[in-house]
């Protein structure tokens, strides 16, 4: 499935000439594991109160989410043709009014965890015990609101929440390690009362196993990923945040996908 998601991302990016392609490519396996193996979300229940929920807090990775939702038949495949084109349907940063299956409007960083907390607190009042997954970026982890949310979620022991940190090692203008201490994710999550596990963020089986673990505490999964994963001309580069997929890059990319 991740191959198909990457193909859709590449084609949409080619059509729209939009950026943030690398940010979408790093979360492909995370989304596959969540939507196809772990979370109780389908085309039949995406509006039901007791569904599991996935919030893409790093909203600039939206293209991967749109592709995944299309493959889940939650949004029509044709909507992808209308990604970030004039008069289109799907915007670069997520507008929850634009399509089905989008749990929150994100794009401004550091909002998803608080919204997840609101989902859980209200679910508990309604005796609904569903899981809430939040995907945040390693750059996003620098936002102050993330610390407020982790403190609160940990203190309240909201074990319905699983945070997946997409550790793709680049933020908008630099390698993350050149901006912040990147060796403290586990320590910080643990200190706030989370169970923490680091996994290969491009291994769907390992991700699935980690995501399926039950805990009395909220869970954090550090998914070690590569920005721009899957394509030689952008993998593991800062430039993948901005790269435009012209026809030649798409041709190379599609060939590389076939040969995986």
């Amino acid at each position, binding site marked *: 499935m991740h191959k198909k998601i990457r193909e859709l991302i590449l084609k949409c990016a080619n059509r729209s000439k939009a950026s943030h392609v690398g940010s979408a490519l790093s979360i492909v396996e995370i989304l596959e594991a969540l939507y196809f193996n772990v979370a109780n979300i389908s085309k039949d229940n995406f509006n039901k*109160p007791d569904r599991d929920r996935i919030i893409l807090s790093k909203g600039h990775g939206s293209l991967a989410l749109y592709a995944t939702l299309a493959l889940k038949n939650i949004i029509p495949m044709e909507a992808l043709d209308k990604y970030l084109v004039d008069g289109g349907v799907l915007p670069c940063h997520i507008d*929850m009014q634009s399509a089905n299956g989008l*749990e*929150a*409007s994100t794009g*401004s960083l*550091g*909002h998803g*965890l*608080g*919204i*997840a*907390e*609101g*989902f*859980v*607190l*209200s*679910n508990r*009042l*309604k005796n609904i015990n569903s899981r809430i997954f939040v995907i945040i970026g390693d750059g996003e982890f620098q936002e*102050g*609101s993330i610390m*407020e*949310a982790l*403190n*609160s979620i940990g*203190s309240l022991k909201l074990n319905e929440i699983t945070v997946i940190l997409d550790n793709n090692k680049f933020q908008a203008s630099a390698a993350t390690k050149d901006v912040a201490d990147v060796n403290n994710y586990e320590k910080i999550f643990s200190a706030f009362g989370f169970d923490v596990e680091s996994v290969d963020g491009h291994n769907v089986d390992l991700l699935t196993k980690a995501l399926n673990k039950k805990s009395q505490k909220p869970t954090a999964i550090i998914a070690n990923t590569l920005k721009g994963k899957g394509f030689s001309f952008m993998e593991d580069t800062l430039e993948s945040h901005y790269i435009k997929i012209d026809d030649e890059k798409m041709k190379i990319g599609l060939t590389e996908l076939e040969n995986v």
Partner: protein
Amino acid sequence: MRMVFADTLLELAKQDERICLITPDMGYGILDKFQKTFPKRYFNLGITEQNCMSVASGMALNGLKPYVYSIIPFVVHRCLEQIRVDVSYMNTDVKIIGVGSGFEYGAAGATHHGTEDISMMRALPNMTICAPGDNYEMVEIAKLTAKTKDPTYIRIGRHNHGILNHNKIELSKASIIEQGKEIALIATGNMLPVAYDFAQELKKENINPTLISMHTIKPIDKECILKLINDGYKIYTFEEHTIIGGLGSAVAEIIAESGQKATFKRIGINDKYSHVVGSAQYIREQFKLDIKGVIEQCC
């Protein structure tokens, strides 16, 4: 007035189980009854205003009716971007309750004064803004806004005077407190009683102004203001808030686009912070927002 709000919210919560109350550690002695009556629907989430607003948004998306309560600078300015994205943009049914409008927290200093909140909230699409001027307006606004699904900001101030508004209150509909002629005094929140006192002073001079309570600042009652302009009124606005972007600006915008001339003056805080040490009333005097200062500014 904040106690009247808390009591009203408690009654509303008894009728509507979706109502929840979130506070970033404020409301000691004010929210206690709610907390005791509905412990599961009361959330002190800690001193985390940004997170509180996102949590409220999540609750509202999930069908609840969350109220977020704190002092104005903390429940508006500290988390303005969360309000913008999670409440205004996502159009969630979150009620933001700001206490201490204007100089109400006088002695606490400018960090605690609510003097630019209307301007900031007015700029946000989908946002309703109310500022009750007496306890009757407080109760009615709390009840009326509880029925809507709109993002709403309620700006709460003081109450140390009698009930001034005896009208049936509708959101976005100005209340005529006293009908006069030629001069219109339009006041909101804390300035309603001051404008009322000013009206009584004018009457002693045989001038009978029309006194209006603009308890809803957004959407504003445009029709009421256009009528005042058409009828040739001299218009004064009164707000315990910067004159930039608040009630006065909202009225000025309508006058400017009306294509007609009107004599107009904004009474409010003139683009300054308070560095004055003293009580709220003392600070109001220094900013000429007490009755004496208002007479000086208007006459």
